[in-house]
């Protein structure tokens, strides 16, 4: 199943579904990377609120998505990791090092809004 990606201004928002196969995750990576280029997006929010399991493959894939997007000059933030998924990740030993995370979509949007405001203020000087 293809992950729906919503374009909102300069952002892309991907809503990861509950059951993701490896192929779905690879598709998501490719769609986001090409989406950032096509829409000249400055930020990507990957919402994993619905994701029921984060195993080592999913973690590796999400981390690589964030790194690739950074290399394109945009920024990615992972939002909505459920408490039980976080618990399981810690037990498994997954860290998602170097990947930005936030509580939920609202916080993710606030992050980019604050960033844009800071940049706009900087331009005025």
């Amino acid at each position, binding site marked *: 199943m293809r992950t729906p990606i919503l374009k909102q201004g300069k952002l892309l928002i991907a809503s990861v579904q509950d*059951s*993701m*196969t*490896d*192929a779905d995750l690879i598709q998501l990576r490719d769609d986001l990377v090409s989406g950032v280029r096509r829409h000249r997006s400055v930020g990507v929010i990957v919402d994993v609120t619905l994701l*029921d*399991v*984060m*195993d*080592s*493959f999913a*973690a*590796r894939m999400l981390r690589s998505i964030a790194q690739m997007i950074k290399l394109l000059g945009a920024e990615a933030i992972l939002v909505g990791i459920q*408490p*039980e*998924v976080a*618990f*399981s990740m810690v*037990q*498994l*030993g*997954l860290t998602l090092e170097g990947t930005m995370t936030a509580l939920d979509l609202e916080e993710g949007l606030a992050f980019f809004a604050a960033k844009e405001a800071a940049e706009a203020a900087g331009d005025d000087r």
Partner: protein
Amino acid sequence: MTAEIVVPIRSDADILLARQRARALAQPLKFSTSELTLIATAISEMARNIVTYAGKGEVLLRLERRAARSGITIVARDSGPGIADIARAMEDGFSTSRGLGLGLPGSKRLMDEFDIVSAVGRGTTITMTKWER
């Protein structure tokens, strides 16, 4: 109580199926959402090892009862290449496939019981159990 389900593992879609079957099977047991997530994650890791290293195999799911406790046992088995050095494979961060090397040691931490039998050229069988609290 000997409900038993066998899920053949041949592709990444079967990994998902094994996880879903386990959740359904464990439904009547008194597992918390967190515990169900731990179990599903461990199944995911073991089923993926089958796909990555052996190409095909199976995951067997079984409800257990010992004394007054219920639990779920997961057997992941394949006739693949086997593991040459089990001690190293159980170390965090050791991988022969450019993975994170967390699958085996990590899954052991997720479950209550974890047993691994492997012979080079003959395959690997991993048996793990999670008990109700």
